């Protein structure tokens, strides 16, 4: 009885804050692609300024996408592992 009442009161009290946190996380995920594109463009500009060809600069800057994929994959993996445990 105590645990059920506690659970209900804890959920009611914490729902707005959990919703806020979930929204923040989703927003970070949504804006991540835009951030990566901007960082890539700035990175390419510096390489091109030193005389590198556009194609080479673009190829080298793909590491940003890989890094993003690694981080996203890692966070997803962490969540799924926690669920399994």
């Amino acid at each position: 009885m105590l645990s059920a009442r506690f659970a209900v009161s804890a959920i009611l009290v914490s729902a707005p804050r959990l919703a806020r946190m979930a929204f923040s996380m989703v927003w970070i995920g949504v804006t991540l692609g835009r951030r990566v594109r901007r960082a890539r463009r700035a990175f390419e500009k510096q390489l091109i300024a030193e005389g590198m060809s556009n194609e080479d600069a673009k190829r080298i800057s793909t590491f940003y996408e890989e890094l993003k994929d690694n981080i996203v994959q890692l966070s997803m993996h962490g969540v799924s592992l926690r669920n399994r445990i």
Partner: protein
Amino acid sequence: MILEEVSVMDDKEKTKKWSSERSIPEAQEVKEILSVVSSEVPALIKGLVASVFSEEAGRSMGKGAAAYYKSLKEGGLPEDVAVRMTEDYVRTFTSFGEVFKNIGHVRKHRHEENEDLRENLRKSEDDEEEEDEES
């Protein structure tokens, strides 16, 4: 007998009173913890993401790679070699991501090992029980 019943009732009332008093502070504690977590954790993640994936970070990383490429070219290396070496240099940043990824794999592997151990333990316990029953 009556005294025992009275003392049991007192205990029940005490427990009930303690529970009702206790549930409110616990809910309040959860509220306080979540208020800190909900504001601090997204800010921390946002900061971490911004430190790697921002225009400023891209520019400074690009400056480092460009300086490396320039010094290789000035050293007399051919264009394709300089580009390949710059690519390798830049890939070291991605390898940090690989390290984190591998940490995840190690955790997964440990989890699987633990599952195997539990399974083996269960089997050995079942075997022991069967042996006991037979004897």
